């Protein structure tokens, strides 16, 4: 079975079968990350679809792993979705989720009950803003540097540092003693 890089190379030459293998390999992971970013299963499906459609149209340059490349596209798609929602005066779908996992009290003083067993990433990030969720995903799941994140999100590096700091401080307070 070809590795991700080989599949991405073939895909960028228009090999649809190679792209399908790549997409099938990463779709479930992308969905999990999408749920953590938007906390809504319907939006998560849309985000994965848009991400894969975007990946098919763009060219993988080998600057990161294929998975990280796909997650970068996903995070940008999520940011566009949140901006679009904000423009139309609708709340981000943060609290809209009712299926796929336990409900989360967004600003509660204690972590969700699932923390007793294994923490659910979507629950963990639910109290954060969309921007803060994005930097946590890129840093903690994909291990990207500040510079890489700044490039991926199109914001100054100082903004990345500030978002990461605030996001972690929020999580630290919320999950203190549970991790």
């Amino acid at each position: 079975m070809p590795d991700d890089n080989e599949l991405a190379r073939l895909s960028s030459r228009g090999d649809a079968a190679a792209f399908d293998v790549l997409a099938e390999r990463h779709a479930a992971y992308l969905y999990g990350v999408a749920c953590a970013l938007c906390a809504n299963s319907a939006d998560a499906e849309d985000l994965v679809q848009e991400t894969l459609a975007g990946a098919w149209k763009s060219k993988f340059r080998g600057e990161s792993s294929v998975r990280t490349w796909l997650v970068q596209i996903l995070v940008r798609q999520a940011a566009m979705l949140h901006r679009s929602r904000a423009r139309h005066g609708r709340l981000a779908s943060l609290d809209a989720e009712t299926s796929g996992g336990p409900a989360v009290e967004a600003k509660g003083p204690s972590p969700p009950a699932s923390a007793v067993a294994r923490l659910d990433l979507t629950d963990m990030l639910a109290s954060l803003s969309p921007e803060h969720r994005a930097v946590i995903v890129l840093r903690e799941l994909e291990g990207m540097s500040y510079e890489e994140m700044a490039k991926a999100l199109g914001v100054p590096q100082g903004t990345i540092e500030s978002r990461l700091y605030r996001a972690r401080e929020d999580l630290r307070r919320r999950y203190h003693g549970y991790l």
Partner: protein
Amino acid sequence: MNCERSNQVHRYHDGELPAAERVSLEAHLRDCGACRELLSDLVRLSAGLGRAALRRPSAQALRRMQHSWKAARDRGVIRLAGWLTAAAAALLMAVLLGKPVGGLGELPGQAALWETAAITPPAENDEDSGSDQLAMAQWMADDLATASRQ
């Protein structure tokens, strides 16, 4: 209570602190309990996030997504095929029309050829038409010269 160097602790944890600052912060960590606690929390938080479960799509959701990306991909292929067809058609037109136009810059005396070609239907612009047009242009020039002498 956070120490004023808590920002640096975050950057240290992420491996983003320059070497000189790293040495200085490591010395500070020996004396500052708040920063040591923060660093310990950050390590645990990163590990916790790394271990956290991602939601899995149902088989139905996976099928829906698969269907959607394949449809999007096929639309892209069809669009690409459309662009290639349009590009090929444009190239063909350029070849058909371009031969007389290409003669523009060759010799100043041949300017009459493109003027003829611009109003001639493309079907007449075949391989042999160039020499016919040249002969006609020459005949017209001779004719005009004769007329002016008269």
